[in-house]
Structure formats: C-alpha cells, structure tokens
C-alpha cells in the first residue's frame, strides 16, 4: 500500500512538470509586437538585421555602458547614445500629434508592456526628439 502511493507520487510529479513546460514553451512562441518604424533606415538590409539582433538582446547593456561613459568621462558620441535612439525611433512631435512614453505606440513602451518590464528612463530623460533635432533628422 505504502509503496504504491509513493510510486503514484513519483509518476505524477514529472507528468505535471512536463505539462507545465509545454505551457511555458508555448509562451515563447509568441511573436514580438509590431513596433513603429524608425525615422532613418539603414543603407543595407544586412546592417538592419544585425542592428535588430544586437539591440533585441543587448540594448540594456549598451545603454548602461554608454550611460556611465557619458556621465563620468564625458564621451558623447552618438553610437549607443540614448538621445540618438530616441531621435531615430520616436517620431518628432507635431502640432496634431505627440508620441509620449505613456502611449502604447511609443517604440520603447510597446515591447516593455508586452514583457511587463517597468521602464523608468523617461522619468528624467526626454521621451521624444527635441524640435530642432527633429528638423535635422527629417529626410
């Protein structure tokens, strides 16, 4: 009697776990949300693919690294600069439409809502290009 109950438990646990795994993996299958297109586009498709692959996994590391370089060493190149990201990925404010970080369509926010990761960059940083920058970037 004792022995069969133990056996039951032993078989039940892996069964439960594997069912759970199936559900979890199903979650990974979901497609990333559609993001708003960048203002500037890369010259070649290859550059674009590389940029997307790198940024999907590493944008937070790139930004943190750049943040400290800028803050403490005054290195203000545009590569991986937060303002440069915003200038390209968030549309410039116009009279009729301003995309803010509280809007779901904001480039950063779309994904961060999807993955439920809180984003506090925009408590301090500008969430949209400055008007004069916007003029320059405009094609």
């Amino acid at each position, binding site marked *: 009697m004792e022995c069969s109950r133990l056996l039951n438990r032993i078989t039940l646990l892996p069964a439960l776990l594997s069912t759970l795994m199936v559900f979890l993996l199903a979650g990974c299958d979901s497609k990333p949300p559609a993001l708003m297109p960048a203002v500037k586009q890369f010259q070649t498709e290859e550059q674009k693919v590389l940029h997307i692959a790198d940024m999907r996994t590493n944008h937070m590391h790139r930004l943190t690294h750049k943040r400290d370089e800028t803050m403490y060493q005054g290195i203000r190149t545009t590569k991986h600069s937060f303002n440069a990201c915003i200038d390209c990925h968030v549309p410039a404010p116009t009279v009729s439409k301003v995309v803010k970080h509280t809007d779901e369509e904001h480039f950063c926010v779309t994904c961060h809502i999807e993955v439920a990761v809180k984003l506090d960059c925009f*408590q301090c940083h500008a969430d949209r290009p*400055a008007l004069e920058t916007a003029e320059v970037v405009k094609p």
Partner: protein
Amino acid sequence: MSEQKQANLIDRYRRRFLGGLTAAAAVTLAPGLILREVQAKPDDQPISDKVRWGMLIDTNKLSDGGDGMIAACKKEHGWGNDPHSSPEQQSQWVRKVTFKDKLTKHETSLPVMCQHCDTAPCVDVCPTGASFKRDDGIVLVDKHICIGCRYCMMACPYKARSFVHEHLENQKPQSPRGIGTVESCNMCVHRVDKGEQSACIEAAPQAAVFGDLNDPESAISKALAKYGAQQIRADLGLNTGVRYWGI
C-alpha cells in the same frame, strides 16, 4: 515662465547690452584679453584631470544683475517652471543674490549657482556616491544612483542644489531632470564636452569668462593672475571654480 518669455528676456538682455555699451568696451573684459578660448576635446576621448573648468563673473558689468544669465540657464535646462510645485519647491539652478553696502548704499547683484568646489561638501556627504566631481572639476549628480536623500542640499553652503518634487515630462534631451533626484548647475556639461561654453556665459559675454583654470595661457587664468578675484565664502577653503569680480 514660458519659453517665449524666457527668450524675450534674453533678447531684451542682448539688446540692452548691445545698445548700452560701446563695442570696444563690451567685448574685452580687461585690456588684452580675448574671451573665447574653449578647446574641443575629440568626442570619443575621455575628459582629463589636466583641465579644470571655471568661470569668472564681473558683477559690475552685469547691467541686469544676472537676469539674462538666469533666463539662458532656464531655457537651456528647462527648470523653474514645474507645474505642481510651490514657489519654495521650484528648482533654482541659479539664484540672483542682491546685497547692499551699508555705508555707500551701493547695491550689487550676482548670479549664484553651483560653485564647482574643488573639495565639494556635497560630494563629501553623499551616501551613494551620486554626487561626484568629474576629472575636469565639474560637480555633477548622477541621477541614476541618487536616492533623493538631500544631504547634499544641507551640506552646500551656497544653497545651489534643488530637489525635484513632481513627475516631469517633456524634459530637454540635453538635460535630464526627474522626480526624486537632486539637481544643480552642471556648467552645461553637454556643451563643454562639445567644446562650447555654458549657456549663461554666452548670454553675458561682456561680463563672464569661461575657461580652463589649469591652463596658465587661458584668458580666465590670465585675468585671475593679473587681477585676482573673490570666492563666495572663501573662508571655507573650498577652492571654488566660479569666481567673481566686484563683490
């Protein structure tokens, strides 16, 4: 104050300056000194401790007591107009301080901002290391690690720091400001890194010089070597980066 109004203030300041002073007297602070001399470092190079940035302000030549400089700072950094803060809570990166000589009744006004001390009390007391001095002498707050405890505000003898009390939006890209952190004059560090001068200096070119205090050939060092200058509360021995004439 709206941006338009601030712009007007600066314009008014410039007009008065251009109209009221002769060109020769206006562009030279002292005979033989040239004002513009900031050298750009390459964008990808780190700052160096061979440089120490400083300012020299001649209060006698500030016809408006520094209002134009303050307006330029507000415009550059977007402070002083936080919608939900009371007047006491509003940020003050630069303050206009006026004092009167009891005997002569002569009034002097000067803009007082972060004095970018060599031995800064705010850096000394900061529990997280958020308040720090860059290698080139500019004192900053790293708002990423500032916890908003406001020890630095207590420690600063110049009352130069402010605390942001409310959620802000539409900040200037070059000057991030946000709730729960302390802020102060950063000598327009984004401009300095590009080889430009601070916004306030540009607004009062007849009365203020910006430059490298460590370089004996710079205009500011020459002026200081020749004429000397005052520090506010020199008795504290903080070796400030901002010096004044006429106080």
